[in-house]
């Protein structure tokens, strides 16, 4: 193992950097969360206070909120400036980056609560004043005119953005020192104790993480305490000002404790998950084995690295993402939120989607899963039957050396495949038009009634089928043609000498030798046809009444017409499961990979 020392160290450095990045992310995330919680909370708090104050003050003096704001200014060093311009209040604070879209939402929730509960007869929309000082300062101040019987009797203010920072002092230097010590120890240990060094270093790193995490938690608790004290101070001020009419804020306090605990649990979950995973990997030797394999076969891995990267990015990542979504209720109402937060909360996962999809069996309901499944299977089988028979028949014709102009025919017959399927599908849709379509034109010339193709499930199905047969046979033809051309002539000669008929030759020589090429093509064709989105979507559009939907077009509609992403993803997982089972089953039964002469 020692011969790979430099590689191991590099691997360690990379892992450490990844850890540092994850950790940094966790820290900054937690700071953001604290701010969100407190700023939002602050909006509620001030709203509540202001309401009480307003009711109190409207009887006494109209200028009351100004005095209150001035009091805030003395209390809060972050509040730099306060100005009153034409009955509107402007205040300026120190940090602009802290007031984000999330806080907007909080304000508007507060606004709605106010509207529903307090200002029942407001005739005007509330003013929302936004003052900002470019780079460094931003705050929101909402000013509600309270109007009763057409008269302005008071104002309510909701203010937020005042909380400008709860710095969590995870000093970067501390983390850096820890990392440097960690690397030095790694290198020294690797020199003298190569066998245990890896395990030891990882344990050390986990220890550092746990320590810093403890530090973080302590600081959060301190912050919470500070906020509490601050609130108490403001409250006592207000109570002193207002005399008998005290303020009960037990409700807001209770609300405040809750989200903080939740956030901490989320990080703990993330960190412990990674830690446990790492320890398991180390204890089972998987990590060491994995690194060792990579190091031993480093050239091979270096060659496939770009491809692996691409495959991960384009195949595995979306796949894992889709599977994750399938177990959640991810929909229109929670689409824009913080994804990491959403997906790291175990509460959001469950099997409801699958249960709801598979629960009801009803073949009269076109949107029922089982109806669509059966329709999809019939669709696949009927298509494949046409694809293979037409494809093989044409291949046999084209393979005949006596046929003149073979190249021209071959090119012509591949055309349906070469033209983009969207165009072909739209042309076919036009051809099935009730009045102006070519198909009905032909029927009428032949003396038949013209048919309204897309109003009945069966005729709509036929229109889809015709389109997809047209699109699908060239592929089978090309495969069959290739296989036919590789059959040695000696076999046909031997068969002729044995006196077999053409039919016997076909069944006993051609078919067995076509099989190895056709079976994988059929498996592939099945999967394509099963998920043939374009034809259904463009030709019948799933109609009438969803009778010709396939599972995949149903999933599309769930995701992009109803925005039920979770449910649609669950649908796709089931489609995947069906095709996966099919793939394994057929490759076992037909021995798809069996060679021609085995």
């Amino acid at each position: 193992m020692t011969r790979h020392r430099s590689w191991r160290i590099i691997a360690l450095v990379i892992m450490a950097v990844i850890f540092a990045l994850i950790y940094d992310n966790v820290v900054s995330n937690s700071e953001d969360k604290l701010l969100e919680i407190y700023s939002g909370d602050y909006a509620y708090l001030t709203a509540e206070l202001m309401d009480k104050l307003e009711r109190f003050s409207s009887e006494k003096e109209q200028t009351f909120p100004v005095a209150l704001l001035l009091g805030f200014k003395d209390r809060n060093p972050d509040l730099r400036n306060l100005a009153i311009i034409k009955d509107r209040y402007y205040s300026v604070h120190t940090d602009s980056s802290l007031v984000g879209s999330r806080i907007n939402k909080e304000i508007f929730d507060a606004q709605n609560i106010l509207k529903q509960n307090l200002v029942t007869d407001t005739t005007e929309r509330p003013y929302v004043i936004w003052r900002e000082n470019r780079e460094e300062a931003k705050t929101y101040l909402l000013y509600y005119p309270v109007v009763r019987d057409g008269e302005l009797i008071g104002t309510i203010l909701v203010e937020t953005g005042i909380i400008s920072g709860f710095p969590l002092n995870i000093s970067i230097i501390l983390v850096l020192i820890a990392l440097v010590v960690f690397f030095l120890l790694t290198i020294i240990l690797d020199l003298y104790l190569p066998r245990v060094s890896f395990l030891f270093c990882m344990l050390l790193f986990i220890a550092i993480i746990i320590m810093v995490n403890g530090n973080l938690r302590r600081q959060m608790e301190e912050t919470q305490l500070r906020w509490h004290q601050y609130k108490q101070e403001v409250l006592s001020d207000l109570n002193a000002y207002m005399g008998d009419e005290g303020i009960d804020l037990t409700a807001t306090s209770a609300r405040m404790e809750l989200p903080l605990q939740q956030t901490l649990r989320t990080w703990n979950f993330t960190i412990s998950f990674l830690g446990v995973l790492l320890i398991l990997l180390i204890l089972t030797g998987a990590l060491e084995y994995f690194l060792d394999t990579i190091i031993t076969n480093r050239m091979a891995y270096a060659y496939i690295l770009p491809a692996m990267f691409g495959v991960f990015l384009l195949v595995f990542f979306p796949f894992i993402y889709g599977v994750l979504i399938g177990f959640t209720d991810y929909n229109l109402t929670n689409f824009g939120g913080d994804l990491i937060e959403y997906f790291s909360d175990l509460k959001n996962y469950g099997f409801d989607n699958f249960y709801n999809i598979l629960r009801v069996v009803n073949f009269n309901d076109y949107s029922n899963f089982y109806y669509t499944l059966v329709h999809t299977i019939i669709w696949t089988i009927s298509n494949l039957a046409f694809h293979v028979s037409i494809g093989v028949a044409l291949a046999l014709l084209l393979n005949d050396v006596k046929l003149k102009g073979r190249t021209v025919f071959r090119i012509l017959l591949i055309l349906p495949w070469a033209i983009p399927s969207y165009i072909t599908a739209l042309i076919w849709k036009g051809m099935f038009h009730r009045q102006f379509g070519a198909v009905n034109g032909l029927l009428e010339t032949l003396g038949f009634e013209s048919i309204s193709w897309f109003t009945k499930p069966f005729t709509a199905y036929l229109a889809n089928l015709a389109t997809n047969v047209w699109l699908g046979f060239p592929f089978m033809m090309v495969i069959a043609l290739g296989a036919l051309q590789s059959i040695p002539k000696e076999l046909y000669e031997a068969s002729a000498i044995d006196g077999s008929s053409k039919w016997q030759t076909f069944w006993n020589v051609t078919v067995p030798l076509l099989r190895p090429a056709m079976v994988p093509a059929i498996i592939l064709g099945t999967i394509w046809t099963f998920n043939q989105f374009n034809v259904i979507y463009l030709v019948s559009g799933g109609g009438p009444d969803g009778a010709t939907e396939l599972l995949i077009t149903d999933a599309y509609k769930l995701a992009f017409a109803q925005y039920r992403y979770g449910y649609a993803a669950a649908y796709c997982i089931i489609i995947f499961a069906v095709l996966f089972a099919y793939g394994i089953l057929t490759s076992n039964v037909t021995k798809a990979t069996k060679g021609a002469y085995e």
Partner: protein
Amino acid sequence: MKKIILLALLISVFLALHSQVKVVLWHSYRGDEKEALVQVANNFNNSQTEIVLELLMVPFDAFPDKITAAIPRGKGPDIFIFAHDRIGGWVEAGIIEPLEFYLEDGVEKRFVAGSYEPMFYKNSVYGLPMSLKSIILFYNPNIIKSPPQTTAEMITMAKQHTNPDEGRYGLVYENANYYYHACWMQGFGGRVFDANDKPILNSEESIASFQFAQDLYLKENIIPPEVSNVLVTTLYNEQKAAMVISGPWFRGEIDKDVPYEIELLPVISPVNNRAMPFMSSEGIIMSAKSVHKDEAFKVMEYLISDDAAFIMATIGKQPVANISVYDRKEVAEDKYIPKFKEQIGYSIPMPSIPQMTFVWSPASTAITAVINGKDPREELDKAQATVLENLKAAGF
């Protein structure tokens, strides 16, 4: 030496570019509208040096889905132009930014009545209206001398100019599309949602309108079968359609040598009410994830300014939302734009609540079935049940 100069040049160019803030605007305009918007953008970029407005055209069909997918991932535009009807869903998904913080008092007075209100969702405003779109009656003056004022007149006239064997039809509109059908539905007094946002697809008025649409096709035989938007354009351009119901976008699809006039949608004879189409107020909307919101708002303000609206009206041929533009001679004397504005007075803003997305598919299924002879009440009861069920499943 040359290299140093070159380097210095490069650096200075880089710095010059860097000091400007780039605001990206997505739109789905084509043809005249696009040309007008490009001109407005150029005027804006020439008028100042701080902000560079960059336009990106995204095809209409893909537009809402691209917005929904791109903005939360930080890949979307700073601002975009779209109809108001998706605002609710985008607000619920945290995709677009409320504008109260930026707006002056009295901004609503700058817009045509009815154009600003649709931009509201839950008491906050999310867009500034640029143009108003609703469908209207197009007719071919070579075929129809004076346009119909009532549906009875319309049917009589249409019958005179219908001959299925020659492929001629009196009236061509996408009758199986709920968006177009809504003009009858709302003219009869039906609505998609009641005051509490509950869907009421199967109201008596709505059923009557479905029956009316069925009669137009099956009984009166004045509409061709299976009308798609391509068929509408083709028949009109071949002068085989006497009347067409479509929106302002249809003007760009009419061939240059085919004449057209427009008229308000007719009064529905059985109920003596004018047909009330859906109106979409197309506005400029700000992304919640934009990092240059102040600059973006400056661009938005420019886009609703009188000068910009004038260009959108004259070159883009849009029924603009800016009210003062209608006083200018070129617009007031235009043959079409004031007519479109008049039709807006007989229209209903398309619902912008997110629930609306759940209505389209079942409602279209129902209208397709009814057009082809199914019973309106049965189909609408079914559609209503489906919508309620899907809404419940999606958590509404």
